[in-house]
C-alpha cells in the first residue's frame, strides 16, 4: 500500500475542501474496516485519507422520543447498541448493527461507512430503509438529503458527488404500535456476509389485529439493497395473519432479482427471501405488540 496524506479536519467545511481538492484520489474514512481492506487490496489508490472522526457532527448520537434518532456517519456500532434508550426504541436497527463483523469490527465499523460502501449485502442498509432513515449530505454546493433507499446506485456506487460527505442519518421517532426486525441468512453463526438479508418495519391498527402500514427491504438479492414499496403497501389494512404475511413474502420473492455466486444460488436466495420475509414480519408484529424479540447480543445473554 503506497503512502498517502492523512488529514483530520475538525469541521465539515475543511473536510469538504480537502475532499474536493483531491477528487477521486481522496476518500473520507470513518471506522476504516472496509476502506483500509480495499486500499490494501489494491481496489483503489489514494493520495489523501480524510479522517472524519474529529468532526463533531459525524460523531453525534442523539435520540428523543419526540424528534427521533440522529446517528453521525462516524459513530461506531458498539456505541449504538450500547445505548439503552436507542436499543429499546429501534430494535430493528440494533438487529443489524449488532451483527456487523465481530466485537473488534463493531468497535470501529459505522453505519455511515456501511451505507457509503454501498455493498448490496450491507446489513444496516435494509434496516435503515424500513425505518425511513434519511441521509444528510454536505458538499461544495451546500447540503441535501436523500432517503437511504435512494442512496446506493450499483455495487460500491452511490449518489455522492465529488466533494460530498455523508454527515449522518436521521429517522423519525417510533410510532405507537410499531415494530421492526432485521434478519440475514449466513451459513455460520457470526462473522459472515449476508446470503440474503431482510428488514421489515410496520405499524398495527389500534386493535392490534390489522396492518396499518409496512415497509420491507432486502439485501444481497440485487445490485443494490432493495426497498420493496409494493410488498409493504399490500399489507395496509389487511388482517395480521399467516395468509397476509405469506402474500407479502411472495411479493418480496417476485421482486428479488439475485445472482448465483459463491454464497448461494439464485434459486436459494429467492427461497431465503420468502423465509426471512415471513420471519421478520412476524418478529416485527411481535415487537409491535410489545413482545420481546432479542437481537444478537441479547440472544447471547440469554
Amino acid at each position, binding site marked *: 500500500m503506497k503512502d498517502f496524506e492523512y488529514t483530520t479536519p475538525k469541521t465539515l467545511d475543511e473536510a469538504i475542501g480537502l475532499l474536493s481538492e483531491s477528487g477521486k484520489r481522496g476518500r473520507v474514512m470513518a471506522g476504516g474496516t472496509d476502506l483500509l*481492506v480495499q486500499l490494501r487490496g489494491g481496489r483503489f489508490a489514494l493520495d489523501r*485519507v480524510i479522517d472524519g472522526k474529529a468532526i463533531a457532527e459525524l460523531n453525534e448520537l442523539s435520540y428523543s422520543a419526540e424528534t427521533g434518532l440522529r446517528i453521525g456517519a462516524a459513530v461506531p456500532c458498539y456505541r449504538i447498541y450500547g445505548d439503552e434508550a436507542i436499543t429499546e426504541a429501534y430494535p430493528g436497527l440494533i438487529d443489524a448493527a449488532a451483527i456487523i463483523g465481530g*466485537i473488534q469490527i463493531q468497535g470501529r465499523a459505522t453505519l455511515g461507512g456501511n451505507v457509503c460502501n454501498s455493498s448490496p449485502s450491507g446489513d444496516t442498509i435494509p434496516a435503515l430503509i424500513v425505518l425511513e432513515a434519511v441521509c444528510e449530505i454536505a458538499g461544495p454546493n451546500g447540503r441535501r438529503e436523500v432517503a437511504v433507499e435512494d442512496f446506493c446506485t450499483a455495487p460500491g456506487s452511490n449518489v455522492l458527488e465529488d466533494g460530498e460527505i455523508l454527515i449522518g442519518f436521521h429517522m423519525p421517532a417510533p410510532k405507537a404500535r410499531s415494530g421492526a426486525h432485521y434478519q440475514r441468512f449466513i451459513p455460520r453463526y457470526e462473522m459472515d456476509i449476508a446470503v440474503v438479508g431482510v428488514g421489515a418495519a410496520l405499524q398495527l391498527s389500534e386493535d392490534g389485529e390489522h396492518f396499518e402500514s409496512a415497509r420491507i427491504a432486502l439485501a444481497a438479492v440485487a445490485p443494490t439493497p432493495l426497498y420493496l414499496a409494493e410488498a409493504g403497501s399490500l399489507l395496509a389494512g389487511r388482517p395480521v395473519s399467516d395468509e397476509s404475511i405469506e402474500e407479502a413474502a411472495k411479493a418480496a420473492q417476485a421482486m428479488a432479482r439475485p445472482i448465483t455466486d459463491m454464497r448461494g444460488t439464485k434459486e436459494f436466495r429467492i427461497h431465503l427471501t420468502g423465509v426471512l420475509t415471513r420471519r421478520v414480519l412476524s418478529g416485527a408484529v411481535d415487537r409491535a405488540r410489545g413482545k420481546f424479540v432479542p437481537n444478537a447480543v441479547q*440472544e447471547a*445473554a440469554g
Partner: protein
Amino acid sequence: MKRIHIQTKINGEDIDFLCEARQSLLEVLREELGFTGTKEGCNDGNCGACTVTLDGVLVDSCLVLAVETEGKSIGTIEGLASPDSLHPLQQKFLEHAALQCGICTPGFLVAAKALLDCNPDPSEHEVRHWLAGNLCRCTGYDKIVRAVMDAATVVRQSA
C-alpha cells in the same frame, strides 16, 4: 514518505513514535516498537489475532492506522500479566491446554480480558458470541471457551 510524530500511551506508559500514514497500528507495534506479542494473522480484519484495545475498545490493530492513535491509550497482550504472575486468563489457558500453535492466543486473551472487565459472569453463549471475531485453527474453540469460563470464576473470587 513523510514520517509523522505520534504520542500515545501503551499499557499505561507514555510512548511516542514516528510512522508513515499508510502504516497500520499492528505494523508499528510489531516492527517499530517491538510489541511482538500482538500477532498478524489475516491482516484484513477477519481473524482477530491482532486484537488490542484502543481507549478501552477492542479493535483489530490491522484495521487501525497508527496515525489515528495520537493522544490515545493502547492496550496490548504485554500489559496483561503483572510483573510476578500471569493473569488468570493466561493461567487457565495453560491449564486447559487452550492453545496449540499460539498465534491466535494473544488476540483471544486481550478480547477475553475485555469481556471479563464488562461481564465477569458470562454464559458460555456470551463467551462464544464475544469471541466470534477471533479465529483459532488448532483447538476447535471448546478448550478456549472452558478456559475463559474458568478464569471468570477466578476473577470473580478475587474481586
